[in-house]
């Protein structure tokens, strides 16, 4: 391939061309069966929802197709430099397969993926294969010119067609060679663009529509309003606590100290008693401040991060609680850490107060860009989102971070609450 290149740029372009051809071939061969399989399975699975079987399979198939689409999005960015945004609605964590399937079918992204599969197995396949054809086909032309023409002609003496050139003697074989050279020139100039067309096609099919983005904006606006409301309410609570607590105590202490100053000569005994009282007040003010701080941002969380903060919390509970933590390679972002801590804290309080459990398990793990939290107890069950259970509040607060919450709590227990928050370690 480097016969007709002189400059370094030409060399790198030639390498790029060969690379694109190789990648295109691999992509075409690899993606065709997967796209066909994904499309067929999706159709069959959705068609079978009414008789029940489909409800069980659809979530799996849809998730598989989404994972496949995400891989192809990543590939488009890596190989073609084309960024394809993805906007799937959060998958509800419900145990009911019908509701889950229905929610997935209601997501326009599911249908968009299907349309993309259809295009990918046709136009996508062709555009992926074209670079390889552009690079490999000229080789055949050269081979014909070099003498292969003698063996490829069919038995009846008819011509062998190379492109639009009928090859039956050395002269026409040279004609084929010339066409091959022209093709190779085109390949050298345009393979990269052709390959890019494949990814642009992927982008065109997989990019979310305006309506979906608008829906996403609506959800974000709502959760932001919730977050602002919540934090305003928190600030009001803190202000009130400080005003009625530590602040009032400091005022009282100041007055007492004034009295002590006055009494210290006249009635030393009484002054001493008053001093002791002042010291008690200061200790109480400190302990109130400590509780307040714990409610704002627990010190262990600041000092040790989420894992140890939850461990310390568990040690304070009257119910035996096992905590397992798998968060490796750094700390979570402070806001996520704090939200996760208070969510777990709320769930633990619920479990202790309402479930009648005598064991609780907390599991925290960070994997593939998501923080997963689960709190399980062996209590009586029957917990539900809403109905003043506090779970709705937790869900709303997690919403600010695109987090989701799912509850499994059959009557008689056990209760398992799972939360997921997308986040990275820092």
């Amino acid at each position, binding site marked *: 391939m480097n016969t007709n290149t002189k400059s370094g740029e030409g060399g790198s372009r030639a390498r790029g061309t060969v690379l694109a051809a190789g990648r295109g071939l691999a992509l075409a061969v690899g993606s065709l069966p997967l796209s066909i399989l994904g499309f067929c399975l999706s159709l069959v699975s959705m068609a079978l929802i009414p008789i029940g079987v489909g409800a069980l399979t659809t979530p799996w198939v849809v998730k598989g197709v989404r994972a496949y689409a995400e891989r192809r999005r990543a590939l488009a960015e890596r190989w073609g430099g084309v960024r394809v945004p993805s906007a799937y609605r959060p998958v509800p964590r419900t145990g009911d397969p019908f509701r889950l399937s229905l929610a997935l079918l209601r997501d326009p992204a599911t249908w968009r993926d299907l349309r993309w599969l259809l295009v990918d197995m046709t136009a996508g396949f062709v555009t992926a294969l074209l670079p390889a054809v552009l690079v490999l086909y000229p080789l055949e032309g050269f081979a014909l010119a070099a003498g292969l023409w003698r063996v490829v002609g069919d038995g009846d003496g008819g011509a062998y067609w190379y492109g639009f050139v009928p090859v039956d003697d050395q002269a026409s074989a040279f004609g084929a060679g010339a066409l091959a050279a022209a093709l190779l020139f085109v390949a050298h100039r345009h393979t990269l663009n052709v390959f890019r067309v494949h990814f642009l096609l992927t982008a065109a099919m997989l990019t979310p529509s305006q309506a979906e983005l608008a829906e996403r904006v609506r959800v974000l606006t709502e959760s932001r309003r919730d977050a602002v409301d919540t934090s305003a309410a928190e600030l009001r609570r803190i202000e009130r606590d400080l005003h009625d607590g530590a602040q009032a105590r400091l005022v009282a202490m100041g007055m007492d100290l004034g009295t002590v100053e006055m009494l210290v000569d006249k009635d030393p005994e009484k002054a001493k008693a008053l001093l002791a009282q002042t010291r008690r007040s*200061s200790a109480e003010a400190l*302990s109130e401040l*400590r509780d307040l701080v714990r409610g704002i941002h627990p010190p*262990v969380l600041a000092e040790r991060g989420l894992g140890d903060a939850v461990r*310390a919390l568990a*040690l*304070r509970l009257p119910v035996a609680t096992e905590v397992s933590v798998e968060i490796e390679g750094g700390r979570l972002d402070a806001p996520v850490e704090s939200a996760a801590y208070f969510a777990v804290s709320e769930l633990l309080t619920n479990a202790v107060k309402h479930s009648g459990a005598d064991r609780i398990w907390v599991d925290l793990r960070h994997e593939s860009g998501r923080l997963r939290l689960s709190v399980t107890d062996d209590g009586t069950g029957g917990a539900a989102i809403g109905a003043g259970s506090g779970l709705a509040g937790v869900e709303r607060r997690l919403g600010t971070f695109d987090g989701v919450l799912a509850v499994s709590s059959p009557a008689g227990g056990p209760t398992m609450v799972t939360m997921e928050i997308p986040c990275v370690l820092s």
Partner: protein
Amino acid sequence: MRVVLAEDLFLLRDGLVRLLEAHDFEIAAAVETGPELERALAELEPDVAVVDVRLPPTHTDEGLQCALRARRRRPGLPVLVLSQHVEQLYARELLADGTGGIGYLLKDRVFDAEQFVDAVRRVAAGGTAMDPQVIQQLLARRSGDGQGPVDRLTPREREVMELMAQGRSNAAIAGKLVVTERAVAKHTANIFVKLGLEVSDDDNRRVLAVLAYLDRDR
């Protein structure tokens, strides 16, 4: 007695220096950051270190980590850890090596100078000084269901156990509860029988046994 002191807030550091010097301690060094503490502990070989959990530059649990590292290098190095909040988790880490010479107190305890100085001396002598709040947390967990051995203690025995778990000697407990030392010894023996622990003559071993018992998982 030579003390290394680590506290980042100037007012508190200054106050502690004055308080300790007034009680005939020699301040070998009063530092404000983790790295300085690390150096001071390695070079000055103090009789006791008084350390704030949270220190610059990270403002996380740098002081605690420094203290734990120093104790790994020099087992039994007496360390009194001070904090704005006490956590059973930290107490457990401090007590883990079982060698004594450990204190863990709320900063509020400095208000009562006599008791605080007593705690520093106790720790320096290889004893224990646990904050009453730690003990209460432990007890609250232990007696959650009202069925365990701790619930079978009489109120007086429970009082004695709380003070013992804080690390106080029989004499100190007797003084505090206004009873004779023999009465305290009797209560102590009862407590150990009820909890199924082995009795030991050594004050500190007794304290550690009670703490370990309270911290044990149910």
